[in-house]
């Protein structure tokens, strides 16, 4: 249970698809002009990731990994098909997107109308293939965790596009220097948000937090922790500063 929770929050905040690994940037930039469309695309991404990551996990476990074909018989043990991952993953994704589109159209026409135009676009969204490739690279151990990973990275992406769309709606009323208008300022805001999200990295150290947590926080809010001997305390202090900076930036942007 704990590993599920950990993976869930890690994928949403620390390894955020957009801010930490820059996946799905193209649609993130292209479809974030209005909050309503951003929500539609975000929901579609969560949905497709939740379906394709577990599918590709099964493929990876039972077909692609070195020795994965052992269930077919002893003579297949030596096969290593991992060089086929790209083509199989993308084929799965393209097929699933098509299938999902048909199923949703048939059984949930209302949802289909709200997602409609975004679904086919998703087959070529880097966040989707990235989800599967990272799942493979990080060797996620079980099907349930893979499902969890798919959903939570989708939610991370959803949050990112929702936030940027909201900011872009507001920023229309600000005096942005003309050459930066539109794309330029969106890049810079995303960068600033990324710096803010980096501070979530502190959640990773939660495991071996020293018992004197409260003291650390008090020290951190003052000038600089003078007696911090171990690295942990230092990072917590730094992060507290960073977060407040990032929040200020976002607040001032708003």
């Amino acid at each position, binding site marked *: 249970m704990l590993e599920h929770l950990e993976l869930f929050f890690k994928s949403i905040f620390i390894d955020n698809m957009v*801010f*930490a*690994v*820059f*996946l*799905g*940037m*193209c649609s993130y*930039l*292209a479809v974030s002009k209005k909050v309503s469309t951003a929500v539609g695309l975000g929901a579609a991404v969560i949905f497709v990731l939740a379906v394709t990551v577990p599918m590709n996990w099964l493929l990876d476990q039972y077909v692609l990994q070195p020795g994965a074909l052992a269930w077919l018989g002893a003579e297949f043990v030596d096969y290593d098909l991992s*060089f*086929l*991952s*790209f*083509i199989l*993953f*993308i*084929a799965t994704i*393209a097929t699933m997107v098509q299938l999902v589109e048909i199923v949703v159209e048939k059984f949930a026409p209302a949802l289909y109308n709200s997602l409609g135009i975004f679904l*086919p676009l998703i*087959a*070529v*969204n*880097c966040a*989707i*293939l*990235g989800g599967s*490739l*990272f799942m*493979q*690279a990080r060797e996620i151990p079980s099907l349930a965790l893979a499902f969890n990973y798919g959903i939570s990275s989708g939610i991370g992406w959803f949050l990112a596009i929702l936030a940027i769309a909201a900011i872009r709606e507001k920023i*229309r009323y600000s005096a942005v*220097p*003309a*050459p*930066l*208008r*539109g*794309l*330029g*300022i969106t*890049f*810079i805001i*995303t*960068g*600033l*948000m*990324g*710096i803010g999200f*980096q501070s979530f990295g502190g959640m990773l150290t939660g495991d071996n937090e020293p018992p004197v947590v409260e003291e650390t926080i008090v020290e951190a809010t003052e000038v600089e922790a003078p007696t911090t001997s171990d690295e942990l305390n230092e990072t917590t202090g730094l992060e507290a500063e960073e977060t407040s900076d990032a929040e200020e930036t976002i607040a001032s942007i708003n």
Partner: protein
Amino acid sequence: MGLLSKKDAQLILDPLADNNPITIQVLGICSALAITAELKASLVMAFSVLFVLGVGNVVISLLRNVIPSKIRIIVQLVVVATLVIIVDQVLKAFAYELSKTLSVFVGLIITNCIIMGRFEAFALGNGPWKSFLDGIGNALGYGVILVIIGFFRELLGSGTLLGYAVLGDPIAKTGLYAYGYENNGFMIIPPAALIVVGIIIWVQRSRNPQLIEEA
């Protein structure tokens, strides 16, 4: 450009500046940012895309009258995936360390929007030679931005270029470091790439006001 007619030369030169895939068309950003902390990785990425886009454009252009339009996305994906597998295997064989650094981002060339974008917008409607030039031009435009970002991030972030210490040794305090210069650790973290791209866009659009977006 004696070899190429004026129109053909434009196919290559346009994407380098005024129709740049990254800063103007907003394509292919996904992979452009994550791997630019070092110049070397940027160069390798740029060459990989050059190969995939150049060859892929020709293949799609040759097949353009055969592909039924309903399944063209799948056909395009298969073509790109095949080319990317070739790139990946070559990298793994001859530059294993580098292929570890690039990790999943080689695979993500498949969904690099530049590639699908050029297939859809150009290769499906033009002959192989023109498509080849268009592919090369766009890949170069992509590569130029990647190299610029990689150059500044590596130089300012770690004081090296392609792994060579050009500004001196930060620990032994030689070169620039003797005068109190410090590396800017900010350039190493991923969000810095976004800000560098933002600045590139700013510079480019200040120099060419035609590119400025409507408010």
